[in-house]
């Protein structure tokens, strides 16, 4: 994995989150998934399944305990993808 992969993951995730949130909300790496983007637990779990399929990885949902922001989620995906 390279830095550009990281950026690609970030872009892809921001695009996907854009379709799950209100159109007037600006999504940044520091956006809080629950507090600012209103991604509830079920939406997040379903998003994780999509991410698994997109990147062909396994993302254990218990790993989400430390995920609060968009950047946290990208870090997690990048870490799993890098070690797979």
């Amino acid at each position, binding site marked *: 994995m390279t830095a550009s992969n990281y950026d690609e993951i970030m872009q892809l995730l921001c695009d996907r989150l854009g379709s799950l949130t209100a159109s007037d909300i600006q999504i940044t790496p520091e956006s809080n998934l629950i507090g600012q983007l209103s991604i*509830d*637990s*079920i*939406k997040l*779990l*379903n998003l*994780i*399944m999509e991410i*698994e*399929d997109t990147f*062909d*990885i*396994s*993302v*254990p*949902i*218990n*790993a989400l305990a430390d995920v609060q922001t968009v950047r946290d989620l990208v870090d997690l995906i990048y870490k799993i993808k890098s070690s797979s």
Partner: protein
Amino acid sequence: MNLLEKLDAAAAARKALLPNGVGAFGIPIEEVYSATEARIGHRRVLLLGTNNYLGLTFAPECLEAAHEAIDEEGTGTTGSRMANGSYFGHRALEKEFADFYQCSSGMVFTTGYQANLGTISGLVGRGDTVLIDGDSHASIYDGCILSGADIIRFKHNDMVDMEKRLCRLGERTQTTLIIAEGIYSMLGDQAPLAEIVKLKNKYNCTLLLDEAHSLGVLGETGQGLVEKTGLLKEVDFITGTFSKSLCSIGGFCVSNHSQLEQLRYVSHPYIFTASPSPATIASTRAALKLLSGGTELRDQLWKNSNQLYTKLEETGYTLGPEPGPVIAAIVDNPQQALALWQGLLDHDIYVNLILPPAAPEGKSLVRCSVNAAHTIEQMDYVGSIFAKLKQEIFK
């Protein structure tokens, strides 16, 4: 935001969903008249939102057994199974469950929730994996979280999706526990057990099936989905609850793996809680005999279920994918669901209201649970009120 303000925020969100103080959740039941009728407020209502599938809550055999147990052994055990809480009845019930499922071992837990928590967290731990259906009950999710194992979800009842996720696990499938349910509580549909077993064997996993809603409902003797599909011997661990068809409270796990016994020494939800009361154990033992003793109650349950499912389907409601005692009308938004729920209550019918995010795919559910004690006339009445409300609410 401090801790209490967080709770205020959650309360505000709940109020936004349920305006005017409507008490759809935790509604007080003032008096219970029978397995099918109770009083809510000043109304005598038809109970169509309980898990009393065989209608045994007032079965004379269960009442008598519970009374005798209280007289002879007192109101509670006041201790855990590990200490002073293993009476003759607890051990006898474990043997009876093991025999019922033709298994070598059985364990009794204090609640059905704890049966899943205790079994799952005893079987898997850090470094292991659990592969669970996306629509799994909260007790399964919580048991997995407690275990520390990696939790992977597959799309509800989607075997292509499940295999895709198994493939990604590689060699880790050997330490993977697959978990499915006989009947899913939200939509009332059954797991595709034959296909799950095929994948379990192909990838060398272990399989746990929760028969909470299917015990007493499916199979010739009421074992559940394992009996209906003839796959009893293919399932490694079976869990279930006493609080549905058996009409008390508690849970169990049975298995032909001798290692089940080790759970008594490692499973915190089993160890660190008081054991079920003598009356609970006694009425459960009596109910298990009734459940397995004939098909009459099951036949009546299915007759009622099929009648109501057909009626609601003909009326134009969108329902779960197959008939069964759990019949969920799937509604697009919470406001319509609330109107339907309230409309039914105004006509003296109590059902369950399920709103997002608890309901699948952002929908809302008005869920009926049919039981064997309901009459054909009661089912007719419920069907007619659903039809009337369809015209009024979904114009």
